[in-house]
């Protein structure tokens, strides 16, 4: 990275030198639903750590795009066809994709920030993406979140650090959004305004709070605008995000004390520890489930339509999967891949025992996605929701961001053909050591998936974020 941040962002903000690029149409475009056409209405991005066992994820010999089994031995995908555990099979509400590259231009560990932004991570250690994430692009910049009390929510397990490492949601300019790791705070963030109750004194207090809240929002917004008038373009971005946040809070004040027929959850009890390495790990499984249950109700009650969830790991002695105490060193770093998980390179057959260990963790993570599908189904919104679940890397020993297996789930209101397993070619043919300059090398950037999802939500874009090669951020994913 050579350009200085403020300069770079200034140019971006002004469109200087890039005015002719279609990217700017993204910013300017408005969404519009064609008459009578069903669009997906809800989006949830899910991050799960430690990469993916590509060797056990892959479509098996003899199977086709629409004819496949998920229940084979050591299948990471088994939860999607497990009616006994998750109420029903979600095999027909699933698309698996192989052969997508996360063009993060950084080590896999910093690449979570690329999943929904499509952006390279710039700035070296502690670097950040340059663009906002898909959930924020849809909910805030395209105003699709305006219809609900909470435009969007970012939940996480165990780690609230604002970084590219374990963050999915980013505001304009690629600044991480605060993540909520405490289910009690998640409950308050989503439901507090809806649980006042009908008691007259509570309603009277709510009425005064509504009035006071409205006056505060008016005052602070005007104050931010007075400051905004004095600053340059990069600083405007900061203050615009502040104004967006105030508008979101204003809606909650307005909704305070409103009634709903929707069944609201009970307030969760506080967990003794929440943070990774501070004793929170034994609770991570329960916290994940609570987050999922809250999301199921929040989307079902139409309190929000846009969410992200960053899962944590299970690094503690006696974890339920019987994984090594140090998941990271003992499972991810010891992964011994075949060429399929090694960017095609001829590395030998690999060690299936290490694949099975990671597949077990993948199965756990996909089990949480299946639980999320079950909850959304119970609240009647699974068919209008699109879930995008990904890790920040494929092969976790090499921290490879190439050929990262990916899952889409939900009904997407019929805008995407579900019930399929799509397998693109690997960017280097299997068994070759091709590099990016080779004629054999053909990247399939996941930016195209982001374009496809944005288009499915009715937003008129033909590119998402920017990559050094313009084509790499352009066009929908063929065949999706």
């Amino acid at each position, binding site marked *: *990275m050579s350009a*200085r*941040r*403020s300069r770079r962002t200034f140019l971006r903000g002004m469109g200087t030198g890039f005015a002719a690029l279609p990217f700017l149409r993204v910013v300017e475009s408005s969404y519009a639903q064609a008459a009578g056409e069903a669009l997906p209405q809800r989006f949830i991005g899910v991050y799960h750590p430690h990469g993916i066992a590509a060797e056990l994820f892959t479509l098996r010999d003899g199977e086709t795009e629409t004819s496949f089994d998920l229940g084979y031995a050591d299948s990471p995908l088994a939860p999607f066809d497990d009616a006994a555990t998750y109420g029903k099979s979600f095999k027909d509400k699933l698309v698996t994709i192989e052969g997508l590259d996360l063009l993060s*231009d*950084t*080590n896999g560990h910093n690449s979570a920030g690329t999943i929904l932004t499509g952006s390279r991570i710039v*700035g070296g*250690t*502690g670097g950040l993406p340059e663009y906002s994430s898909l959930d924020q692009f849809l909910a805030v910049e395209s105003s699709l979140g305006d219809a609900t009390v909470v*435009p969007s929510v970012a939940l996480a397990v165990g780690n*609230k*650090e*604002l*970084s590219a490492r374990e963050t999915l949601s980013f*505001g304009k300019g690629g*600044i*991480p*959004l*605060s993540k*909520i790791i*405490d289910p009690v705070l998640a409950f308050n*963030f989503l439901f507090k305004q809806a649980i006042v109750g009908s008691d007259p004194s509570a309603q009277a207090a709510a009425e*005064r709070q509504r009035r*006071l809240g409205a*006056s*505060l929002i008016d*005052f602070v917004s*005007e*104050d*931010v605008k007075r*400051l905004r008038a*004095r*600053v*340059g373009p990069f*600083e405007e971005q*900061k203050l615009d*995000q*502040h104004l967006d*946040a105030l508008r*979101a*809070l204003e809606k909650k004040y307005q909704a305070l004390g409103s009634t709903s027929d929707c069944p609201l959850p009970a307030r969760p009890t506080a967990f003794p520890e929440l943070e990774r*390495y501070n004793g929170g790990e034994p609770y991570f499984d329960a916290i994940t489930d609570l987050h999922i249950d809250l999301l199921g109700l929040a989307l079902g009650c139409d309190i929000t339509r846009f969410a992200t969830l960053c899962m944590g790991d299970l690094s503690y002695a006696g974890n339920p999967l019987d994984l*090594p*105490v*140090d998941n*990271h*060193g*003992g499972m991810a770093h010891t992964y011994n891949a075949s060429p399929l998980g*090694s*960017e095609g*390179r001829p590395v030998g057959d690999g060690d299936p025992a290490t694949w099975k260990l990671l597949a077990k963790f993948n199965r756990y993570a996909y089990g949480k996605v299946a639980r999320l599908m079950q909850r959304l189904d119970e609240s009647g919104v699974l068919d209008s929701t699109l879930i995008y679940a990904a890790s920040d890397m494929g092969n976790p*020993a*090499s*921290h*490879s961001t190439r050929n990262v297996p990916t899952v889409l789930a939900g009904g997407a209101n019929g805008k995407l053909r579900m019930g399929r397993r799509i397998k693109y070619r690997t960017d280097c043919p299997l068994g070759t*050591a091709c*590099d*990016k*300059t080779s004629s054999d090398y053909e990247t399939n950037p996941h930016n195209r998936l982001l374009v496809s999802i944005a288009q499915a939500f009715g937003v008129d874009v033909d590119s998402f974020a920017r990559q050094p090669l313009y084509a790499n951020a352009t066009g929908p994913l063929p065949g999706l």
Partner: protein
Amino acid sequence: MAGLGGATNAGGATAGASTGLGGTSGKGGTASADDLIPARVRRLATPEYDATVQALLATTASPASGPDFPPDLRQDGFTVNDAQRVDAVIVERLADAADELASEAKANGTLARLAPCAAGDDPAACARSFVTTFGAKAYRRPLVDDEVNALLALYTVGADGAAYEDGIAHVLRGLLQSAGFLYLTELGDAPPGTGPVELAPYELASTLSYLLTSAPADDELLAKALAGKLADPVEREAQARRLLANDARARDTVVRFVREWLGIDRVQEIAKDTLIYPAFDGLKASIVAESNDFVRAVAFESTGNVSELFGANWTVSSGPLALYRTAGSGPVAGSTLLDDRVGILNQAAFLATYANAHESHPIFRGVAIARRVVCLPLDSPASFDLSVVPPAPDPTKTTRERFSVHPADSICAGCHDVIDPFGFSFEHFDGMGAYRAEENGQDVDSSVVVALEADYDGPYADSNAMAAALAASPTVRECMARYVLRAAVGTGDSFATPGEPAFVEFWRTQPAAAQGNIVETLIAYVKNPTFTVRDAL
């Protein structure tokens, strides 16, 4: 070579490390508008928010340091920077904190003290008096009419159907969420587009006081600013020395700079594999304490020199002495002489932070030395399209043998010729910083040759010998100065920080003794001519 399958070379790119040898950042020299910090606004960081409400309300509450507040966004490792935002979560936390602080101020008499209104006085006039006096303190500048009127409107809403104090409490809620309170401005008074701007006197007072104390300016500093005195570097220096002598928070700032510069503050967030390092959990508190107290002792109870930071043969008594070989009491009060390690780079915080949960990590350690101690820029392997495969565990080999996988003729060597000698020198210290003579039944080899045409070149038996050389290195001194600047500026652009070339030129004109001193380098930043200037809007 196990585990490191054919790394590929992206189109003959050469390693970036070779461009920065000799201790410059590769960005030095060219004076341009890029040499000025941009005119900007900066949201208060967590400790700044807490110190500011404490100064305004005489409260002991630290709302932003509580578990419910999101952390500050780090830039280049530094927590105080200009990237902080107010998003949908933070805006609610700020609203909650304002409610709680206003309730507390009402209940404990603070409001009555700050906004007195005797029986018979006109409440609206009392409110106006509060808004103009207290409002100016919260905004760190006098208010304009629009702001006064907007705050009086809040008073009216709050007092409507309630008491005078409820109206005042509502004004306080508004102030604590206002842009004027939450953002430090570095904008000047000049209209946009007229070239570089001079900070306004109030801004200069806040810039200096938040830099040093993370808190608003005190009366003396404000008086100097309003008298126009802070344009004079001599007066800025005098004020900085006054604050460093009298305000514990200023000393905290120096400690934070050093910890975040070296990345050792992150030791608070790490864990070790309990099967391999069962003692770590029990020692962690003392490792964290040492990472604070040793820096404080060097900076304020001893020489204050970077040579001592990296070359001391002692540590503080709060450190993890059970992990070290000690040799009686040290030169600083309450300190202990050490027999097996030299300087902060060989203390547990650095060694444990730059390691994996289950093993030492020569690459993490080597990269940290290259980037943060001698200021050599290194590119990420990904920028060469290299796929990095960490070496697999092997009970027959030492860590060094497993990590010695960067053949001289490969593209990897371009960077690893720099990284590996630094990193391997630490191999006598395991993943939590304990000394080890052997590993997996073999003698540990920590001998290295650093050959980078730099003033810290040499053959070293181990990281202690290397630390002694780094402690004496002019390159390391200058790198410290660069990181003091980067911490102070907070733009997050390592190796391209605006103002850095000009500052380094200025720092080189300081007396040699001051150049090697951490606090004196911070004072040099305060004195430097661009301290008061920002780039055009």
